[in-house]
């Protein structure tokens, strides 16, 4: 392993000296090359982040709109008609558009924000910086990855403006509801769904291109001395996230392709004996359940694709700001691996009540509860990291702590949902909504925010504003719990209901749905504070204390981190390091050791010092 690493680092270093040398008399990159069709990982990271923020606002706004309907099902909001038009005639959101919003909210948040926006941003920013590489293995493929994501975004966004509206059969897109191209069955199953499928296809291509690049980069471009066990946990998380994506996204692509065959070519992969308005359609022999298997074969790993990068970021942030090594580094690495392996064996826990063979369910219960073990290890290790630290309660640290809190709260309810007999009652109810929003929605956002606040100085050489950051944190923490915690008590109330008025059984929670809606609006506004803070701070944030060195570059390490990204010049330069790439001599968590606050990874071992293993 180490011989291999050295070779690639040497070769790479050689190439880069040429490059840096050639840079002086080469043509200056044009504006278009620098900011739009850039192959620089730092710029691509920003592109992913800002696109993700755009989608975050759209997805959040959709949830505010459908929360208006849920909170006040008997009232009208005339202002809605002015910008939703026929979808909200008389100021009342139509039941069709309600489903479309729920569907798009799910698709946008799961894929475009928490996969593209989160993984795309931080994997791109941190992989080259933290492993000590000039850039990704292929800058061009990396650029393509973003532009496929962009294309997916454009297609999905346009689908909002169709006559029949965007897809509206749930983000999981189960057939036959989404499998019949018949708008009398479901308006969103017309062109809206075809565009959804096209957008997802582009998205999957983007994700695969990105993922392959991340893995190739991590395995091949580590700097001299950076053995795998010296990688920061962020990198481990990004690598396993990428592997998960590479292995699972193709299943969804296949699933969606077959679905489009059924819709457009008249095949029967998922359809059998469908009767519409008393007429038996010609589909024979397919199985709607097959689609669910294909979907969840991605769908479940997908939640780990979302949460693993957040876990990596949080591990790093907790350690840096506690001024302590991450507790149990090896256990953390092993638990990520365990989660990745087991996450491929749990998908059918989404399907306990589809008529799945009960014997098969037993296997999935076992693995589902088993995956709680590595998750528990991680939680204990995070808490162990804070213990006896000298905790700097900066904004990123607050979000990291919030992440752990959310992950505990949401993760524990997974033990109920994963146990099939309990799931009979809880499946597709608000209990599930509470569970996954806390554990992979809010928690992943906390991880993302921790990352943005922490690495903002790495992006822009400035800090985000602390005061606004703390306000953002507290409103989101309290508001997040105010929205989702009470939903646990709505156990048994079905999801995706436009109103509960038709049921005696479900109609008792009106005051609570209103409370939740108000909390959702407040939390949404708090996210806008984050957006304002972000863009304001790019230009006016407090500058990072820097030191100008002889090479004419400025260096700063605002959080006193040990990892390599802080050894690179704080201003954006192509190739990341001005001179040679630093070699690595120690693990990434030497905090408060040898009477020093921290020792960077590129600091050679002191005479007599034993390497941490």
């Amino acid at each position, binding site marked *: 392993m180490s011989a291999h690493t050295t070779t690639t680092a040497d070769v790479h270093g050689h190439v880069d000296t040429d490059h840096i040398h050639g840079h002086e008399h080469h043509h200056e990159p044009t504006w278009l090359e620098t900011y739009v069709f850039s192959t620089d990982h730092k710029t691509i990271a920003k592109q992913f982040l800002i696109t993700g923020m755009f989608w975050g606002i759209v997805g959040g706004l959709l949830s505010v709109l459908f929360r208006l309907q849920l909170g006040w099902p008997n009232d009208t909001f005339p202002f809605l008609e002015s910008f939703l038009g026929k979808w909200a005639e008389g100021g009342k959101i139509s039941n069709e558009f309600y489903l479309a919003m729920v569907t798009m909210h799910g698709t946008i948040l799961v894929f475009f924000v928490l996969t593209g926006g989160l993984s795309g941003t931080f994997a791109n920013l941190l992989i080259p910086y933290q492993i000590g590489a000039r850039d990704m293995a292929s800058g061009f493929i990396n650029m393509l990855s973003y532009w496929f994501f962009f294309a997916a975004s454009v297609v999905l966004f346009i689908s909002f403006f169709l006559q029949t509206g965007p897809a509206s059969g749930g983000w999981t897109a189960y057939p036959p509801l989404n499998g019949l191209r018949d708008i009398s069955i479901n308006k969103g199953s017309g062109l809206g769904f075809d565009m959804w499928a096209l957008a997802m296809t582009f998205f999957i291509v983007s994700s695969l291109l990105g993922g392959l690049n991340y893995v190739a980069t991590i395995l091949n471009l580590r700097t001299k001395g950076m053995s795998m066990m010296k990688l920061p946990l962020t990198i481990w998380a990004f690598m396993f996230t990428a592997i998960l994506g590479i292995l699972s996204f193709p299943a969804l692509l296949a699933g969606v392709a077959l679905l489009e065959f059924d819709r457009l070519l008249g095949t029967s992969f998922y359809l*059998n004996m469908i009767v519409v308005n008393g007429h038996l359609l010609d589909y024979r022999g397919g199985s709607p359940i097959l689609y669910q298997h294909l979907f969840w074969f991605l769908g479940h790993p997908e939640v780990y694709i979302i949460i693993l990068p957040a876990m990596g970021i949080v591990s790093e942030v907790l350690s840096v700001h506690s001024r302590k090594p991450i507790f149990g580094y090896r256990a953390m690495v092993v638990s990520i691996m365990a989660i990745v392996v087991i996450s491929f064996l749990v998908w059918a826990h989404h399907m306990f*009540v589809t008529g799945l063979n009960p014997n098969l369910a037993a296997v999935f219960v*076992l693995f589902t509860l088993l995956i709680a073990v590595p998750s528990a*290890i991680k939680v204990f290790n995070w808490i162990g990291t804070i213990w006896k630290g000298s905790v700097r309660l900066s904004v990123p640290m607050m979000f990291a702590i919030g992440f752990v*809190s959310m992950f505990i*709260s949401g993760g524990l309810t997974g033990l109920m949902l994963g146990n099939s007999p*309990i799931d009979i009652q809880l499946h597709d109810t608000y209990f599930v909504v509470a569970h996954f929003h806390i554990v992979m929605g809010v928690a992943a956002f906390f991880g993302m925010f921790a990352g943005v606040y922490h690495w903002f100085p790495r992006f822009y050489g400035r800090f985000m504003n602390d005061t606004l950051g703390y306000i953002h944190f507290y409103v989101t923490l309290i508001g997040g719990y105010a929205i989702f915690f009470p939903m646990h008590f709505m156990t048994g109330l079905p999801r995706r*209901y*436009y109103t509960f008025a038709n049921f005696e059984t479900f109609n008792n929670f009106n005051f609570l749905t209103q409370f939740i809606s108000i909390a959702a609006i407040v939390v949404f506004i708090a996210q806008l504070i984050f957006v304002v803070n972000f863009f304001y701070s790019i230009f006016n944030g407090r500058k990072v204390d820097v030191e100008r060195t002889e090479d004419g570059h400025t260096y700063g390490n605002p959080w006193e981190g040990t990892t390599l990204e802080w050894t690179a010049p704080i201003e954006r330069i192509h190739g990341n390091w001005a001179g040679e790439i630093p070699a690595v001599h120690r693990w990434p968590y030497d905090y408060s050791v040898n009477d020093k606050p921290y020792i960077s990874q590129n600091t050679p071992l002191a005479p007599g010092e034993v390497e941490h293993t």
Partner: protein
Amino acid sequence: MLAFVTFALIVLFFTVLVLIGKTNELSEDIAGKGMNYDAKSKWNGYLLLGFVIAFFISIVYQVKLLAPIMIPKSASYHGEKTDNLFYVTLFFMTIVFILTQFALFYFAYRYNQSKNKKAYFYSHNNKLEVIWTVIPAIVLAVLVVMGMRVWFQIFDVESRDKNPLVVEVTAKQFQWMARYPGADGKFGHRVLDTAHITPTNELGIDWTDPNSHDDFWSDKLVFIKDKPVLVKLGALDVIHSFYLPHFRVKMDCVPGIPTQFYFTPKYTTEEMREYLKSLPWWNTINPETGEPRWKTFKYELACTEICGRSHYGMQKEVVVVKDQAEYDEWMKKQTPIYVAPKSESASVDTAAAPATAVSDSTGKEAPKSGKPVAALIKK
């Protein structure tokens, strides 16, 4: 004008926030402690500690406020077991929840840099890590074993009653069609081809089969106390899900794939009302009916798989009668489908709850949307 004022207010709100933020930052810089987090760590430490305490108190309050409103105790035998499993899991969860949440926020407070200047270099402890791997693993193993015992009891075909009450429920957008086998206990045969499936005979019932002659549609699901029920499920157009919240029953209705659920009701509708009468919240007056809530209590059937625009309207009442005699009496009053096969689909429509019929017509035929469905239902 209103829009402009709103917009101006929003801009003002964010401007003020940014100014406050910037002012704080500048005053810190002037005081020369820009990157010194001592003070911030101190008050945020208190706030985090305060948060976790407030969080715990709010949970107690939520339990007090919301638990009485929740769907009441299980009305079926297997449901008692699944509920029990829920509470066992909840017990373990609560312990872990309290310990970890408290430790997390307390450590953040206790070891914040204003209180603890020097971090303790402590990278791992294998013994500790083994302990906190093994203990969760044991607890989870216990939960899996308990869960699987209940699961296989629910789905154990061998031990089932050989002569249960069989009901066939077929779902379509947006209603439930419940077919009972009539006095002979046998359903008429169904032929699934274009000759038999027609707009007036969506199930493709073979009228030449004499068993079909006493089958009847029912506007509600009627079960018998302590008599096992086998619900045979299907769907015509898209996936629906058969959900009886009070009985802890849920099973998808999948077009082209038959499914079923077997369970035994424990309490009649009347017994459930009597039970609820003993609970304070159920004695409060429902403003919509002007009656105590327990009086209008009913079991209901709902759809829990997204099935289209009126997914939320697929309601059907469920009644549990006390014995076979009461059931037989009810059955005698039903009209067989065979007697009036032509009005079959119409009879389903009129029999269905008005809410369903209304929501269906709003969505499907006349796009006279804009009229709030809920408002229509209210009438």
